C-alpha cells in the first residue's frame, strides 16, 4: 500500500471496468448524475464493445471542478470488476491512485503494485447473501460498487435515492432493491476503510444552468424544433440513438391530441441508399427531412449526394463518425469522415459540412443545417462523432428563441408563380447563385423536371458545352454564397501568439484544456475552432496570421489539415499535425505533449524564444 495521498477535492478520474450486458450502465449513470446533481462538473465517457453481452466495457468519470469536458488522460481510481481485463486495468492506475476490486475471489497478482492503494470489497458475496436470482445478483453487484464509491468519495446517499426514485417512478420496488445494494456497499466501506478517501467530492455550485445530455439526443431535439417531418434511416452505431430520440420526442410532442395522428413520418429504410433517397424526395417535395448515419452509410450515400448537389435539392445528413476504415471499430470514436463528406460523390461536388463540438452545438446546428440546406438548396452534413453523440456531456442549458421561423429559402408560392410569365428553374436572378424553386402540387406553370443529367439554366436536358458549363459555374457562385452563410470559426487570439492551435469538433474540450495547461507552463497559443465547410474568411485570416499552426484532429491521415491546404492559401510548411486516432476520445495531455515536443527543440535553437507567446 502506498503512502496516503494528499487531499484532492473534485478533481480526479474514476474508471470502471465491467462486462457488458451486466447492467453496469445504470450504476455508472447513477454515479455520474449524483455527482452532477451535487453541483460538481463532471464528464462521462463510455468505451463499450460492438457486442450485446459478455465483452469488456469501461466507463470513465472525470470529476472536474474547473469544468473540463475532455479526458484528462489519467486514471486515479479504477473499479476493476472484470477479471479478464484485471491486469491491464491495474496497470492503468496513476501512481498514488486507488484500485477497487471484488475480493470475493482472491487475486494475489494484484499486490504487485506498491505505488497504489488496493481496496477489496466482497461485492459478489454481499449480493449473494442479500439477493435472490442470478440476474438480480449480477445487476446488484454493480449497484453495490456505486454504494462503495459513495462512501469512499463522500457522495450524498440521499441524492442517489432521489435519482433512483426518478428513474423508477413507476416501479417503486426497484428503488428499494437498488437502495439496498447501495447501502450494502456503503456500509461495508464505512466499516472497513477510513472514509472518505483523500480523493473526494464536495458539493459545489458549478452546474447551475447546465444539463447532462448526449449529442444524438440534442440533435434529435434540434430536428423536432426545426420542424422536420420526415425521418428516414438505416440502423447503424453510433447514429441509431439519434433516430430513437427523434421518435421518442415525436411521439411525445408531435401527436395531434384530437386525432391521435403523428405529425411526422418515421421510416426505417432498407439501406442507406434508400434512406438518403427518401430524404431527398421529401425535401424536394417541401418537407424538412433528415437521416442519421455513420461512415459506412455515407459511403453508400455518395451517388445520391451528388444528385442532390447537382439537382439542387436540400437534404440534411447527420454523420455520427466512428472508427474506420470499413467496419472499423463501430463503438469507438474518430473524425475519419471529414474528406469523405466534404467531397462525397463523383464529379465536381462539394458539400456544406457543420462540425459541432458538443451536444449543445448539435442542437443548434441541427436547426441551422435545415436553414442552410433550404437556403442553399443543397445537402448539409452535420459531422458529429461517437464521443459527442453517445456520451453524456455537461453543457449549457439549451435555449429556444420563440421568434425563430425556419428559412425555407427561395420557394415560390402560388401568388408569386401566377405573377411570372414563365418559370425557369435555374436562372440566377439575384446574383447569389441561388435560384428559385417550386414545389409539386402548386401550379402547372411552375412544374419543372429535376434531373442529375446535364441541364440548361432553363431546366432542360442538355449535352451542350456552354449550357452545361453555365450551370456548373453558377454552382460555384452558390458555393461562394455558402461561405458567407455558414457558422464562423470560434477564435481565441487573446494570447496574440505566433503559434496557433487549429481544430474542430469534439477535439475542442481537450484543446481548450491543453491551452490552459500550456499557459500555466509559460507557452501562450491562440486557438481557432473551425465550425463549417466551406471555410469562412476568418479561417483564412487566422491561418495567415500565425507562423506555426498545430492542426489537432482525430484521424490518421490529417484529413482536416488536407482540407485546409486544399481550400485555403495557407503555406503547408507552417502546419504541424497532432493526430489522435486510436478510437478513444482525445485527451488534453496528448495535445500538451505534442505541442511541447515541437516547441522545446525550437526554443532551444532560438534562445530569443521567437515562438514563445
Amino acid at each position, binding site marked *: 500500500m502506498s503512502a496516503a495521498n494528499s487531499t484532492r477535492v473534485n478533481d480526479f478520474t474514476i474508471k470502471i471496468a465491467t462486462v457488458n450486458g451486466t447492467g453496469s450502465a445504470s450504476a455508472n449513470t447513477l454515479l455520474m448524475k449524483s455527482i452532477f446533481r451535487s453541483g460538481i462538473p463532471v464528464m462521462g465517457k463510455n468505451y463499450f464493445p460492438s457486442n450485446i453481452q459478455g465483452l469488456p466495457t469501461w466507463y470513465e468519470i472525470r470529476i472536474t471542478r474547473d469544468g473540463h469536458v475532455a479526458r484528462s488522460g489519467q486514471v486515479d481510481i479504477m473499479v476493476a470488476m472484470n477479471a479478464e481485463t484485471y491486469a491491464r486495468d491495474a496497470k492503468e492506475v496513476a501512481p498514488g491512485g486507488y484500485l477497487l476490486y471484488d475480493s470475493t475471489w482472491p487475486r494475489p497478482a494484484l499486490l504487485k503494485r506498491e505505488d497504489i492503494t488496493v481496496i477489496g470489497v466482497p461485492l459478489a458475496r454481499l449480493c449473494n447473501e442479500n439477493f435472490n436470482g442470478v440476474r438480480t445478483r449480477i445487476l446488484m453487484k454493480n449497484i453495490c460498487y456505486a454504494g462503495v464509491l459513495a462512501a469512499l468519495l463522500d457522495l450524498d446517499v440521499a441524492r442517489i435515492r432521489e435519482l433512483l426514485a426518478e428513474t423508477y417512478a413507476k416501479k417503486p420496488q426497484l428503488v428499494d432493491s437498488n437502495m439496498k445494494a447501495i447501502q450494502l456497499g456503503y456500509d461495508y466501506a464505512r466499516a472497513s476503510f477510513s472514509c472518505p478517501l483523500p480523493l473526494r467530492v464536495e458539493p459545489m455550485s458549478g452546474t447551475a444552468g447546465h444539463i447532462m445530455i448526449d449529442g444524438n439526443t440534442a440533435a434529435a431535439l434540434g430536428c423536432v424544433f426545426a420542424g422536420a417531418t420526415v425521418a428516414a434511416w438505416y440502423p447503424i452505431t453510433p447514429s441509431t440513438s439519434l433516430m430513437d430520440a427523434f421518435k421518442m420526442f415525436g411521439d411525445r410532442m408531435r401527436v395531434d391530441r384530437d386525432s391521435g395522428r403523428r405529425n*411526422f413520418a418515421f421510416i426505417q429504410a432498407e439501406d442507406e441508399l434508400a434512406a438518403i433517397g427518401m430524404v431527398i424526395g421529401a425535401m424536394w417535395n417541401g418537407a424538412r427531412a433528415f437521416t442519421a448515419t455513420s461512415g459506412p452509410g455515407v459511403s453508400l450515400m455518395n*451517388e445520391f449526394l451528388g444528385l442532390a448537389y447537382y*439537382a439542387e435539392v436540400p437534404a440534411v445528413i447527420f454523420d455520427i463518425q466512428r472508427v474506420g476504415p470499413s467496419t472499423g471499430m463501430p463503438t469507438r470514436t474518430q473524425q475519419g469522415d471529414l474528406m469523405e463528406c466534404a467531397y462525397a460523390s463523383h464529379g465536381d461536388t462539394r458539400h456544406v459540412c457543420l462540425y459541432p463540438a458538443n451536444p449543445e452545438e448539435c442542437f443548434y446546428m441541427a436547426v441551422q443545417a435545415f436553414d442552410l440546406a433550404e437556403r442553399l438548396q443543397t445537402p448539409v452534413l452535420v459531422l458529429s462523432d461517437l464521443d459527442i453523440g453517445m456520451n453524456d456531456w455537461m453543457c449549457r442549458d*439549451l435555449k429556444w428563441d420563440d421568434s425563430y421561423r425556419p428559412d425555407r429559402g427561395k420557394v415560390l408560392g402560388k401568388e408569386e408563380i401566377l405573377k411570372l410569365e414563365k418559370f425557369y428553374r435555374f436562372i440566377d436572378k439575384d446574383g447569389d447563385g441561388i435560384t428559385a424553386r417550386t414545389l409539386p402540387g402548386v401550379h402547372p406553370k411552375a412544374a419543372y423536371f429535376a*434531373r442529375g443529367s446535364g441541364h440548361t439554366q432553363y431546366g432542360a436536358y442538355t449535352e451542350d458545352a456552354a449550357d452545361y458549363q453555365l450551370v456548373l459555374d453558377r454552382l460555384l457562385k452558390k458555393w461562394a454564397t455558402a461561405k458567407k452563410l455558414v457558422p464562423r470559426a470560434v477564435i481565441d487570439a487573446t494570447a496574440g501568439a505566433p503559434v496557433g492551435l487549429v481544430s474542430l469538433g469534439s477535439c475542442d474540450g481537450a484543446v481548450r484544456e491543453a491551452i490552459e495547461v500550456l499557459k500555466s507552463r509559460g507557452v501562450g497559443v491562440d486557438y481557432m475552432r473551425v465550425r463549417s465547410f466551406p471555410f469562412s474568411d476568418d479561417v483564412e485570416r487566422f491561418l495567415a496570421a500565425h507562423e506555426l499552426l498545430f492542426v489537432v484532429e482525430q484521424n490518421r491521415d490529417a484529413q482536416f489539415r488536407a482540407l485546409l491546404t486544399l481550400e485555403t492559401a495557407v503555406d503547408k510548411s507552417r502546419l504541424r499535425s497532432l493526430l489522435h486516432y486510436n478510437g478513444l476520445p482525445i485527451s488534453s495531455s496528448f495535445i500538451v505533449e505534442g505541442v511541447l515536443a515541437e516547441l522545446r527543440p525550437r526554443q532551444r535553437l532560438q534562445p530569443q524564444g521567437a515562438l514563445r507567446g
Partner: protein
Amino acid sequence: MTFIAKPKVAHPSLPKNALGFTRRDYEGALSTLCAGCGHDSITAAIVEASWGLALEPQNVVKLSGIGCSSKTTAYFVSGGHGFNSVHGRMPSIAMGANAANRSLHYIGVSGDGDTLSIGLGQFCHAIRRNLNMLYIIENNGVYGLTKGQFSASADVGSRAKKGETNFQPPIDPVLLAMTLGASFVARSFSGDKQQLVPLIQAGLKHQGFALIDVLSPCVTFNDHEGSTKSYAYTREHYEPAVHADFVPLEREITADYKEGETLPLIMHDGSRIVLRKLDAAYDPTNRTLAAVQIQERMKAGEYLTGLLFVDLEPAKGAFHVVNQTPDAPLNSIPFEVLSPGSQGLEKALARYR
C-alpha cells in the same frame, strides 16, 4: 441534344375533359427515343389515362430512375413536377416525396434493368410499405440505354441481337410483387392500348402500391428473331386473362357484362373498376391461386395479362395508415404546430438536469 418543346396549339375541335383540358394538355416534351420504341406507346397511354381521369396536371408527380424508359417521364404531363433520379433508386425518392405530401398522384416509370437489377431492393421494399403510387415497368428484356445487354427479365433461351443466349432464369416482377404482398399487380403490352389505359387509370385510383409490368419491345436491341421480348413474340404469346374497365364515378356501368364473370371494385372515391374475366378459371382476388396459374401458363410460354391480382382491402398496411400520418400533407402543417417552443423545450429537458 437540346430541349425540344412540343408546340401546343389547342385545336377547338379537340375533345375536352371535365377540367376543360384536351389530351395535348397532358403531353410533355418531344420524345427522343427510337422510332417504334414500345416506351413511346406507354407514354401515350399515360397521357390518355390522365386526360380521361381529368387529373389536375400539377397534382401529378412523375418519378423515374435511369434508362430509356426512365427518360419518358419528361414526355407526359408537362404541368406536373418530374424527378429523374439515379439508376434503380426511384422508389426511395417516391417514398420520401409521398411522405411529404400524400395528396398527390405519384407515377413512377422504370425499366426492367432499373427495377430488377440495380433497383431490386428498393422495388421490393416499396411494395412491402404498400406505398401509394403507380409503378410502371417498361419491360423490354434488355438495357436499352447502354445498348442491349441482357436484363434480369430476359427469358432462358432468349437470344441477344449479337447472338449470345441467356441461360439465367428471369426475375418476373409480377410473381415477385405478388409474393411480396403487392396490393395491385397487372401485366400488359405497350401495343394494347385498350387494355393498358384502363389499367393505368385503375392503378392511379388504387390506394396503395399498383404495379403494371408492361412488355415494351426495344426495336433497336431486342426485336429480332430469337428474342422473347420482340413485338412478334409478345403478340403471339400474349394472353389477356382479366380485363379491367375503369368506370368513373359519374358514369353508369353500361357494358354488357355476363353474370359471374365480372367483379366491380369500388375505389375510395366511388369510381369503379369492373374486372371482366376472359379466362373463367382465373381468380384475380386469390393471391395464391392466381400466382399458380400465372406460373403454369408461363411454363407453356404464355404471358397472362390484365389486372392479375388486386387486394380488396388495399389500404391495410399502407404506409400512411401504419405511420398514422394526418390526412393533410405533412409539408402543409404550420411550423407553429410542429415546433414545441421554449416551453416545450423546458419540459423536454427536465430529465437531463
